[in-house]
């Protein structure tokens, strides 16, 4: 408990520093934007953009657009005693939505995100950027875990070994006691099954739609 006031103090100082940087940027000092961008580029990429796009190249491009828009429109930002992060996050989500709309990859995904935005980026319900990012990261993990729980054991293990632990194919095959060719088939089916179960969820915030619901968990 003794560390809590110190943490609060540090958070307050960081917020004041951020407010000063935003104010300077709004007055025309471009360099004041640099620490803000450096601080939030990573959480924007890792918790907002990439999990919604699933493609690193597109995600980097969207991050670039997001930061550029933030620099360009910094004067329109109104300081409300909270971090600038929700504002940046909103820009990023709008960009992601544009990407999905343009590529027509998933109408449902785009629609779901529209519903999701006001809930998660409400500045009144979040204390600071780190909290928002952590909350979002947890929400993503929860979705993944819920979907993983619906998969058959062997599929779950294949995904866990190859995509989460990132072990080589040979090692994954050895641990499952199968040939590499068989493991390839297992992983292939596992990702297909994951995608179907992931897409079948209908709650707002689902992403990666474009599916049918013919198959049910066995």
């Amino acid at each position: 408990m003794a560390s809590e006031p110190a943490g609060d103090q540090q958070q307050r100082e960081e917020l004041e520093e951020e407010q000063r940087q935003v104010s300077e940027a709004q007055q025309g000092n471009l360099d004041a934007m640099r620490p803000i961008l450096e601080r939030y580029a990573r959480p924007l990429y890792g918790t907002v953009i990439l999990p919604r796009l699933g493609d690193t190249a597109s995600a980097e491009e969207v991050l670039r657009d997001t930061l550029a828009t933030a620099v360009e429109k910094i004067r329109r930002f109104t300081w409300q005693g909270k971090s600038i992060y929700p504002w940046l996050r909103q820009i990023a989500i709008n960009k992601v939505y544009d990407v999905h709309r343009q590529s027509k990859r998933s109408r449902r995904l785009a629609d779901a995100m529209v519903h999701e935005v006001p809930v998660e980026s409400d500045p009144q319900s979040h204390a600071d950027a780190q909290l928002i990012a952590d909350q979002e990261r947890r929400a993503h993990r929860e979705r993944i875990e819920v979907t993983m729980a619906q998969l058959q054991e062997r599929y779950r293990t294949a995904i866990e070994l190859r995509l989460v632990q990132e072990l080589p194919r040979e090692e994954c095959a050895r641990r499952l006691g199968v040939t590499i060719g068989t493991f390839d088939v297992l992983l292939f089916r596992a990702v297909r099954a994951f995608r179907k179960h992931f897409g079948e969820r209908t709650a707002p915030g689902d992403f990666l739609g474009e599916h049918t619901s013919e198959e049910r968990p066995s």
Partner: protein
Amino acid sequence: MATDDDDILTGLVPDPDAEPTAAERAHAKTFAELVDKTLSGRTPPAMSADDRALLEVATVIRATSGGLPLAPAKQRDLIEDVLRQAVGVGGGAGTGTSSGAMPGVVPIERARARRWAPWIVAGASTLVAAAAVVTLWLRTPSRPSAPAPPVARAVPASWTSRPTDPLIGPIPRERAGDAGARIDYIFADRLDGFRERRWSPGEPGSRGGKR
């Protein structure tokens, strides 16, 4: 149980123990190699739509597991790029600015001014042109001056046309070689006309009045 690989995204996913078809095996191998390349950061730009959709799922799983952070060098380059573009200094991807040293900070105001400069010039030019057109349009016509003298006044027909046919008439064949005499005759006639025109008193262009 053999499986059909036709419908990758929407078809039924077989049980783990189901026997794969040759097509599914081949597709699975292709996908495994794509995952290999993606894990090593070399995602191929071209792939089938089905593979891309599945790879996106794999990437989402990895990203959510914290396996795909933005590389610090990449982040630095992105930010440098964004700031450079914002001030209109060169920029573009891959400018190699990972040293982090941004040469001189240009205030946003100046950058904005640079961005608007062409429009300002174009606008000013348009205004000047419009003003010129309006000035020409509204300018009062100049006061009518004294009536200009007629361009041509009536003169004797012989001054403007002296055909040679009445002078020479038909040329008989036996006199066809006397061209010199005919030319002399015509010249004399022309000279006579010139004198008449030139030395007649009171005629415009004549010198008769001065003598």
